[in-house]
């Protein structure tokens, strides 16, 4: 379990996160949502240890990340998989080399063993015949799959995704969502996704944390989001007529 307690982060005296507390559980897809500038990315970067919070604790299965020394923090990070918004694939490496990189860095496997693992994860993300291609030679959706493959190649305990389906067509976005959810269930990992995409939130958000102006304004499941009367989350999620209609239909059906 990841346990966040009273997380506070500021930049040049301006508070961005104001005492956020929440938990993320094993085998569940948790989502952080909120408007632009609400602190989602900063929150995610604090979880990853890329930002050091001024106050608060982030415990990964009992290990307080904010109190670990650099060596222990690097050790912890080897248990983390991350899918960046833009993929963050290494331009100079092929798809195969990108995925093999963490294995080369942290295991003593032979080349054949590493290749076997790379092909396994590529198969898992439904990507074939792309091994020798460079990131610039494949589509955005394929890049996201490669990023997911790289994130899971080390069998992580924790998977973080920053807007994994931004810039993708609805079909590919759904495929990526389903893939992340399947991987979360299959390997029983703790998945935290930062998203703007309400479709993803409704589909795979088993736990949703809504941030507004740096505070946790609401948290619940994708079922509870239909019933809540919390004004902040209702205004955010049901800002489009389509979702308003969806909510009405859902509430009528469940009466």
């Amino acid at each position, binding site marked *: 379990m990841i346990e966040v307690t009273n997380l506070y982060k500021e930049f040049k005296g301006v508070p961005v996160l104001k005492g956020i507390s929440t938990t993320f559980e094993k085998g569940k897809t948790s989502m952080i949502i909120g408007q632009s500038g609400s602190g989602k990315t900063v929150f995610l970067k604090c979880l*990853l*240890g890329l930002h050091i919070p001024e106050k608060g604790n982030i415990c990964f299965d009992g290990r307080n990340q904010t109190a670990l020394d650099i060596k222990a923090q*690097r050790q912890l990070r080897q248990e983390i998989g*991350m899918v*960046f*918004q833009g993929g963050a694939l290494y331009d100079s490496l092929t798809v195969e080399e990108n995925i093999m990189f963490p294995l080369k860095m*942290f295991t003593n496997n032979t080349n054949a063993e590493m290749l076997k693992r790379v092909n396994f994860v590529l198969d898992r993300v439904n990507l074939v015949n792309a091994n020798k291609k460079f990131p610039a030679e494949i589509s955005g959706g394929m890049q996201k799959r490669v990023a997911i493959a790289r994130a899971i190649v080390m069998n992580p305990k924790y998977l973080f995704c920053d807007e994994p389906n931004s810039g993708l067509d609805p079909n590919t976005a759904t495929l990526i969502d389903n893939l992340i959810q399947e991987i979360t269930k299959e390997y029983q990992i703790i998945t935290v996704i930062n998203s703007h995409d309400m479709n993803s939130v409704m589909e795979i958000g088993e736990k949703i944390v809504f941030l507004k102006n740096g505070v946790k304004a609401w948290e619940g499941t994708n079922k509870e989001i239909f019933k809540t009367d919390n004004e902040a989350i209702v205004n955010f999620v049901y800002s489009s007529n389509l979702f308003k209609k969806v909510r009405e239909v859902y509430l009528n059906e469940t009466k």
Partner: protein
Amino acid sequence: MNYLEHIGKYFIMLKQVFKKPQKWSVFRETLFREIEDLGLKSLGIIMFISFFVGGVVAIQTALNVDSPFIPKYLIGFATKRSVILEFAPTFMSVILAGKVGSYISSSIGTMRVTEQIDALEVMGINSLNYLVLPKIIATLFFYPILIVLAMFLGIYGGYVAGILTGRFFSEDYIYGIQLDFDPYFIQYALIKTLVFAFVIATIPAYHGYYVKGGSLEVGRASTQAVVWTSVVIILLNYFLTQMLLG
């Protein structure tokens, strides 16, 4: 940010750079790639410039020692001294600061703005050590070779220029380059080269690593990296000359 802050941050960066590589096999692989990118790919430009600069130095010297009282072998002597002491180590380092410095700064800067450095950090990799240390070792290893090559080609360029223009005889030139040869000058040039190689690898890496923003800022960082690397090379050249030859 003031200059002192930058200097402090630069040395803090170096502290992270000089850590034991996390995996020697990966380090070795990266090192060979850097030797190719930063060294071998600079061979052509260094050979071209040093040959012609040597030629120009010889012709300029010949034009300025027109007096019958000044022996012609001084052209070879002056060309050798100029090329070994300054043109090869300093001038070539400034050229490399432009070519290699902008490459280092922009490649690391692009990695920063596209979150590739964050990806390294999230994996638990010391990104500074992984990205910068191979560059330092590659430049320290290869630039002395480049500069020695530049010395030979510069002196040879002077020889060819003399033959082509007919301003001096080849025997005079060869006698001049052998005259009063002091091996310490080679040592002096190589010491300077090693210092400049370190500067060429680290200052652009600093500018690239700490860039914030997008492509525009990467471009700006690249320009700043070249400017500051050149400034530091010129300043260090002055102090090293005073220390080693003064």
